[in-house]
């Protein structure tokens, strides 16, 4: 077939793919159409990939450098290995471990984008045109940062020993990070003014890979959602840069689409935590040092409550609102909480769940966890929706949530000031299941705990809920 015609057909298939990505994202706006939207997007992806394969098979071999069968072996083996790993991990991962897997998939996507630029640069052996030159360098920098950064983020969420979820001090701290950035900028300018230098390219690669590590290590585990979202946006940008390098429109469109969506999502998440993205990336509060004492009403003692008391309060309430948080996700207590809720409902108690926008490890993560545990979707209520109902609730049961319930956020001058919170303190009585009086991510005391209406139930979220179930059954 005529090569021009063949290429035109490939481009039409890529256009169909790009349209499917946009339509798929639009359909993911609503829970009712979201799954279909993901399938539309996947269908577009399949069309784009198959069309590429057909085009590469049928096109006349380029005059210089065709590897023929070897290239196809590479593609088939690569797809088999990558596809197998992706399919296996995606199907077997526990829903609680899902954020780190998304981060891992993000890492390999960024890695692939960086490798394309490296390969292209080594292949041309001469100063590329200005556009390609800029795109290659940006692709290597962004792709490499997102590769190591996402791996570290994933490791932090898994709680690996080398990447603990607490903020880790990097030798030299921000000076190291700044020096690495300076090296990248200097080497990039050196290449952009017209020099072809493979060592300089590898210097950029090395600096960017280390930069990804030093950027992510000092950030605490609770901020990982924002970091992963930001790195997702980075990968999109890197892929768009790879599109400029290869002059491929579908890479540019899909990459830019993800770059923009990731940026919006990152801002939404940061806003919900009342933090700026900049603040998170340079490691604002929460480093365990320089903890700010809340200038709130001091004194007020903590009241501890027994398992049986808590069970009686819950069982004889007419309305209970459960406030699940990060601690519930960590303890994987979503099934236990559903069991307790069902037991209460059998006794005629109205049960709702109050979901803070950043509950869990990512926005919407708590919804997924609770849905996995078969909690009926209508019981999951968003913050604006449920807040007025705390006034009428007999008991608010807080499981592993901390800063998002702190009334100090309503006052100025505390690290959590201005953060939207759940009005848990408006309930008639409050039960908090918590392991200790430890502080939340903001590093301040939660005034909710010294509220006279609050009873503290010191226990691990999962064990505590299981004991509560047993206690309610025994009534």
């Amino acid at each position, binding site marked *: 077939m005529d090569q021009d015609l063949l290429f035109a057909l490939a481009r039409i298939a890529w256009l169909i793919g790009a349209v499917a990505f946009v339509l798929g994202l639009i359909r993911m706006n609503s829970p009712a159409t979201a799954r279909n939207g993901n399938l539309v997007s996947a269908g577009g992806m399949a069309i784009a990939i198959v069309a590429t394969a057909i085009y590469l098979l049928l096109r006349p071999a380029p005059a210089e450098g065709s590897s023929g069968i070897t290239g196809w072996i590479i593609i088939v083996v690569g797809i088999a290995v990558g596809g197998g790993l992706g399919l296996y991990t*995606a199907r077997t991962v526990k829903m609680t471990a899902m954020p780190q897997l998304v981060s891992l998939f993000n890492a390999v*996507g960024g890695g692939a984008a960086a490798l394309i630029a490296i390969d292209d640069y080594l292949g041309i052996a001469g100063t590329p045109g200005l556009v390609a030159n800029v795109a290659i360098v940006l692709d290597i920098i962004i792709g490499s940062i997102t590769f190591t950064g996402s791996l570290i983020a994933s490791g932090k969420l898994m709680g690996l020993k080398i990447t603990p979820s607490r903020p880790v001090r990097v030798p030299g701290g921000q000076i190291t990070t700044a020096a690495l950035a300076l090296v990248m900028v200097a080497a990039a300018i050196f290449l952009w003014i017209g020099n072809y230098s493979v060592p300089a390219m590898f210097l950029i690669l090395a600096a960017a890979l280390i930069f990804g590590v030093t950027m992510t290590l000092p950030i605490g585990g609770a901020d990982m959602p924002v970091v*992963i979202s930001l790195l997702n946006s980075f990968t999109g940008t890197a892929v768009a840069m790879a599109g400029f390098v290869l002059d491929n429109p579908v890479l540019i469109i899909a990459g*830019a689409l993800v770059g923009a969506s990731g940026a919006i999502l990152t801002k939404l998440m940061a806003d919900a935590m009342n933090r700026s993205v900049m603040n998170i990336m340079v490691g604002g509060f929460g480093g365990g040092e320089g903890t700010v004492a809340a200038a709130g009403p001091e004194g007020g003692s903590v009241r501890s409550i027994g398992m049986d008391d808590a069970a009686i309060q819950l069982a004889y309430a007419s309305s209970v609102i459960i406030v699940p948080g990060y601690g519930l996700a960590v303890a994987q207590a979503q099934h236990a909480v559903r069991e307790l809720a069902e037991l209460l409902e059998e006794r005629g108690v109205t049960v709702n769940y109050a*979901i803070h926008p950043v509950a869990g490890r990512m926005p919407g993560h708590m919804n997924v966890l609770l*849905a996995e545990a078969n909690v009926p*979707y209508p019981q999951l209520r968003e913050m604006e929706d449920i807040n007025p109902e705390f006034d009428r609730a007999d008991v608010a049961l807080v499981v592993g949530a901390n800063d998002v319930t702190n009334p100090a956020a309503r006052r100025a001058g505390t690290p959590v000031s201005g953060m939207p919170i759940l009005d848990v303190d408006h309930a008639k009585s409050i039960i908090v299941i918590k392991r200790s009086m430890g502080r939340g991510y903001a590093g301040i005391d939660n005034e909710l705990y010294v509220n006279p209406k609050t009873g503290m139930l010191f226990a691990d979220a999962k064990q505590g809920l299981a004991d509560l179930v047993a206690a309610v059954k025994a009534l």
Partner: protein
Amino acid sequence: MNAAELGSFLTQFTVFILAILCGFATISKVPATLHTPLMSGANSIHGIVLVGSMFIAVTATDLLSQVVSLIAVAFATMNVVGGYVVTDRMLQMFKRKPVAAATAEPRAEG
């Protein structure tokens, strides 16, 4: 940069900018509940980098280039396949269960 290069760059750049605006417009309407599946869905879309990886694989002649493109293809495929499958698993959780459960329940006597 000559005129032809500039023209081709501006075409690419136009597409790039419009796609960014498209991404902004699409995402800002999504409710918080769907943010995690959405992030995962967007994450799958940048797996399109597989198309680029296939291009470099078929033209790889030296060993280094072949190794680089093999890793790129494997990485990109993992991004695509894993991304869509895990997103689908998340979204499966959102299907309305109470209705189905109620109709499936055997009717009680009397």
